[in-house]
């Protein structure tokens, strides 16, 4: 199966282990990722905060390139995914305003745009996932954390169930983990507030940690580089503000797939985290 791959700006930098685990896992599952030629930044939240036309033109250029490449597009970052979908709806959706002419970009909507999690859920059967599992994640008690932009708003993302998604839960179950249900799976991690209002982001993250704890979880699993960063990078600060110690590993779902598949690179990915997940994994006999 060949798809075009749009990594987004952080996958080659601060979310490097996400990119590495995505490529390793897709390799094993027979999904060939062709990185989109000469892709540019989707604009993330800064573009739409400042200039509507810019916020559509930036992702639209990538759609034009992807359509020429002729393969469906797979996107690991939730923010990038949502921005690309917004551009798709604007240029080729049912209520298209056809910004094609002003923006000079030509896109007809001939390819499908998928968030990576959704893509793997729908294109790889549970049986095929289980067949690849060498080391079931027994004893690991994750909560599945979907974040905001992969799902919302559903009329843009085409998400099947934006209030209580199940795709990651099912995937982690198939890997043998003891997935904990919780009500905070789509509650915001703070997004860009980690730069502009760290205090507010800390409150969001603290709430997520507390609710994960109440659910009986020992780790969180994400599908977005900014969610992972906000949950992983600032635990010392959040702990200090809260007056207690949070030490919760935050995985990319592809990292856990790689771990369960017995892929040799997994150890290296975990070494890149700020909150070291290796002690937990060792405790559970998974590393």
């Amino acid at each position: 199966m060949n798809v075009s791959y749009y990594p987004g700006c952080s996958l080659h930098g601060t979310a490097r282990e996400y990119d590495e685990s995505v490529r390793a896992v897709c390799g094993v599952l027979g999904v060939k990722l062709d990185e989109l030629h000469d892709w540019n930044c989707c604009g993330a939240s800064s573009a739409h905060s400042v200039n509507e036309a810019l916020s559509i033109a930036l992702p639209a250029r990538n759609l034009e390139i992807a359509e020429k490449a002729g393969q469906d597009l797979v996107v690991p970052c939730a923010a990038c995914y949502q921005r690309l979908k917004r551009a798709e709806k604007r240029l080729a959706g049912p209520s298209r305003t056809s910004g094609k002419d002003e923006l000079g970009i030509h896109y007809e909507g001939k390819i499908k745009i998928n968030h990576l999690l959704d893509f793997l859920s729908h294109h790889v059967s549970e049986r095929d996932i289980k067949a690849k599992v060498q080391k079931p994640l027994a004893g690991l008690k994750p909560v599945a954390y979907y974040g905001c932009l992969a799902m919302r708003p559903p009329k843009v993302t085409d998400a099947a169930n934006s209030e209580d998604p199940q795709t990651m839960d099912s995937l982690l179950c198939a890997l043998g983990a003891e997935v904990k249900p919780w009500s905070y799976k789509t509650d915001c991690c703070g997004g860009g507030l980690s730069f502009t209002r760290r205090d507010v982001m800390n409150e969001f993250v603290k709430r997520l940690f507390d609710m994960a704890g109440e659910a009986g979880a020992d780790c969180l699993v994400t599908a977005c580089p900014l969610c992972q960063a906000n949950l992983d990078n600032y635990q010392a600060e959040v702990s200090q503000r809260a007056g207690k110690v949070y030490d919760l590993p935050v995985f990319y779902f592809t990292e856990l797939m790689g771990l369960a598949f017995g892929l040799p690179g997994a150890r290296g990915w975990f070494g890149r985290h700020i909150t070291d997940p290796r002690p937990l994994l060792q405790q559970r006999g998974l590393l």
Partner: protein
Amino acid sequence: MVTVSPSTFIRDIEALSGEKVSTCFQCQKCSNGCPATIAMEIAPHRLIHMMQLGLRDQVLRSNTAWVCAACETCTARCPNDIDIAHVLDIVRQMSERAGARPDLQDTVRFHSAFLSSVRRHGKVFELGMMADYKLRTRNLFQDIGLALSLLRKGKLKLLPRRLSAGRPVKDIFRRTEKAGR
């Protein structure tokens, strides 16, 4: 001093956002789902109501749009299909044009640093963008420890990637600057 001109302010908002803000009947679903109300001076549903009442100055001076995390919970849940997050984008842009409050400038600086990195490189050069933001906010030492950890772990590239998307992206910035919709 309260300036009330209901007919023009709500029309401006609706024209700029393309959203039917006048259909809001303050069901409060947006504010109830909003995680950022803990930091907002005026909750989203009240802000919309104030737009309907033509309270332009109060709306443009509030911090609501600036603390919004753009999580789009409000947009997803509004029974009248109003893209509230998008309306807040418009409020943010209008309030910046009217002269944003000094205490809200960090958000402006962040978006400027981010977009200037995109404009220059076609993609965000993370280290450059962060350094630019820290300089603009004169907050050089916050997160130095984190930055060093990220560097050590190979997660912060020291140099931007050279790519040919640079020119087309600069064109996009130039063309959309004029549109500025």
